[in-house]
Structures are given as structure tokens and as C-alpha cells.
């Protein structure tokens, strides 16, 4: 089991460019999350998904879009990158608690994004 993987690990963009971050999990989890982590701010929820084909806004969704076309993948898109989106992005997944699975989020290794 690879757990939660994220690609790419690092990326530098210029203002106005677009990109997609990919998160993949092999644990058959229902719920997936995208967070950003900034110094002194903690982890903030961008978007999340409670199942294939569903997405919902989190705490800081502006400037980001997401898609969950397959259960194992959760994509985060930046249509027109801004310097304020410079951050470390983490994906996480968790199973449906009604299945008796542990109430545990599993995190990926992160993507470090710099927008110039």
C-alpha cells in the first residue's frame, strides 16, 4: 500500500499560470481533503469530497477548483495562480466511519508550490 500520494512534490509557477495537483489514495477511502499549510496559520481546508463525484467548499476555497471523477483520485486546480497561493498543499483521506473504520485522516507528503 502506497497510502496517499501527491504529484508533483515541488512546483514553481508564474502569476497567472494554471496547474493541477493530483492526489491518489489506494485505501478505498470515501472522504478526501485538500489543505494548505502556511507558517503561523496551521492547516486550512480548501475543498473536500465525501465520495466519488462530490465536492464541497472548505474554509479557503477561492481561487481553487477540485474534481473527484474517480474514487481514488482528488484533483486540485489553480486556474490563474497568484503569489498568495504560495504554500504547501496537503491531501488527506479518511474512510466512512459508519463502516467501522478508525476515525483517522491519512495525509500525503505534500506539494510545495511557489508562485512568483
Amino acid at each position, binding site marked *: 500500500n502506497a497510502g496517499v500520494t501527491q504529484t508533483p512534490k515541488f512546483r514553481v509557477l508564474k502569476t497567472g499560470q494554471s496547474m493541477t495537483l493530483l492526489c491518489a489514495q489506494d485505501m478505498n477511502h470515501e472522504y478526501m481533503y485538500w489543505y494548505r499549510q502556511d507558517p503561523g496559520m496551521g492547516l486550512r481546508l480548501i475543498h473536500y469530497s465525501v465520495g466519488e463525484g462530490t465536492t464541497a467548499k472548505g474554509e479557503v476555497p477561492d481561487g481553487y477548483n477540485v474534481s473527484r471523477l474517480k474514487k481514488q483520485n482528488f484533483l486540485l486546480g489553480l486556474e490563474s495562480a497568484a503569489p498568495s497561493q504560495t504554500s504547501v498543499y496537503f491531501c488527506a483521506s479518511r474512510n466512512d466511519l459508519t463502516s467501522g473504520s478508525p476515525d483517522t485522516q491519512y495525509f500525503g*507528503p505534500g506539494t510545495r508550490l511557489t508562485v512568483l
Partner: protein
Amino acid sequence: EDQVTQSPEALRLQEGESSSLNCSYTVSGLRGLFWYRQDPGKGPEFLFTLYSAGEEKEKERLKATLTKKESFLHITAPKPEDSATYLCAGRSERGTYKYIFGTGTRLKVLA
């Protein structure tokens, strides 16, 4: 508004010097208090989940406790390999799927 506050921001300990990290929360109808460890350049790694006041969980040199207002992560006789950032998070009844994270405590254990 749901909030999780961790203190101190940073802590330096000598090897073997026990201490505690604090996580204060105001989370409506808490449905779980979570502790994670995060090493530099890596994602958070799950440590504990606590559900009700009075609950305690242990793992090696770490013990997490929960009251109605705060949680503590006690570190007994720490070793340099315990150096990391420790995060806590709460999940409220209002957002079954969402977690509110604190800003973390950076722990450095000196040999």
C-alpha cells in the same frame, strides 16, 4: 466560531526532561480531538484520537489526555527523535467531515 489553540508555539527540552503540550479548544459538540506529529518536509502522521473528557491514550513516551476545554500531550523522558511539530485538531458536530487544526507546537529535544 470553532477554534483550536496550541501552546507553546515552540519548546526546547533536554533529553529526558518531561513536559506537556497544550491544546485548548472551543469546538461545538466535539466529536473527536486528534493529535498528529509532523516532521519537516512531510505530511502529518496520526497519533491519537480522544472522544470524551477523562479519556487517555498512550504510545511509547507520549500520553494524550482530554478535558472539557483542553487536551494535553505529555512527553515523558523525551529523546531527540521526538523532535517534530505536534498538531492537534478538533471535529465538531456541525461539520462531521471537517477538522479544525491548531497551529502546532514545534518541539526540539536536545541530546
